[in-house]
């Protein structure tokens, strides 16, 4: 694998670069905001990263949309240098169109659809907690 990252970065033994979500420390309870970031694998989630490649706001705004931003040029560079995107980042990129759609996105959607049909057909109390499909897995 071609490793073209800068020589000024700290040397980790057997470490690699990942593209992942890091919480931007706004220090407000129940209001998360993520940055899409290229960082070393061994680093803590929120600590020093190599470069910021975008942002992701998990809560919907007043027009009922979730805002995500990507710096596609730099993402291409980092993936070319051998960075691994994590599952949520891969899903977001798939939804954006940069990657192909992640299989789990489709399967989750199908499961949810099946669930909603089930609840529609069988009227009555259904414990959705056991299925655990209501939570957004991102």
């Amino acid at each position, binding site marked *: 694998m*071609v490793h*073209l990252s800068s020589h000024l970065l700290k040397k980790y033994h057997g470490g690699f670069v990942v593209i992942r979500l890091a919480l931007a420390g706004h220090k407000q309870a129940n209001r998360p905001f993520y940055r899409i970031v290229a960082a070393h694998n061994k680093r*803590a*989630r*929120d*600590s020093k990263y190599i470069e910021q490649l975008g942002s992701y706001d998990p809560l919907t705004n007043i027009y009922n949309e979730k805002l995500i931003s990507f710096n596609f040029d730099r993402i*291409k*560079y980092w*993936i*070319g*240098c*051998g960075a691994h995107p994590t599952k949520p980042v891969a899903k977001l990129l798939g939804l954006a169109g940069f*990657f*192909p*759609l*992640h*299989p789990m996105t*489709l*399967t989750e959607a*199908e499961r949810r659809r099946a669930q909603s049909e089930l609840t529609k057909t069988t009227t009555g109390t259904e414990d959705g907690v056991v299925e*655990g499909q209501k*939570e957004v*897995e991102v």
Partner: protein
Amino acid sequence: MFQVISGRSVQAARLLAPRSAVLVEAVRGRKSRSDPVAKSKEGRIKVPAPVDPEEMVVLKERYSEYQLILRALRLEFKEEVLQKKYEEETGSQAEQRVRQDTEEHRALMAWNNEENLRLLKLRMLRVQKEKEEAERKQIEAAVQREQEQEEFIKEKEREILQLQEDAKNFITLENLDERIEEVLDNPKNYNFAIDREGRVVKQTMLQ
């Protein structure tokens, strides 16, 4: 220990784990190995999440396709990065840039040399002037000193002459008797009176 990663367990781990920055995926959160099992979890048997075989087949198919496309994309991007690097180092612009840099460097060095020469000339002039100033001062100081010496000598000579003049009125052994008799013959009266207005009165009671 193999742990099926589904949405629920990740959430559980997030709740269990304290305010640490690392997102752990194992369920071993707050407790260590030797801690006893909680009372509510005594008879619990952990079962992996149920797998739907049809869904699994479809999922495997989708995954293989996805990984294929992703691998292709990765190679593409690597190629692009290498291309850019190559272009940067040995492209058409690189030579031009190098030539421009060397020319600029030469021009700047020449200008620097000129500046140095100019400053050198100014410095030489300045140093010359300072030397001349110093010499002039030295000469002046010497002249001053000469003058002072002469003045000193003259002063001393004047004093000597004055002394010689005074010597004529000195009282010596030969003049002694004559002088005593002179003084005794003419008594001098130094007494006088003066009042607030300044009127001097030299006439006093003679002894």
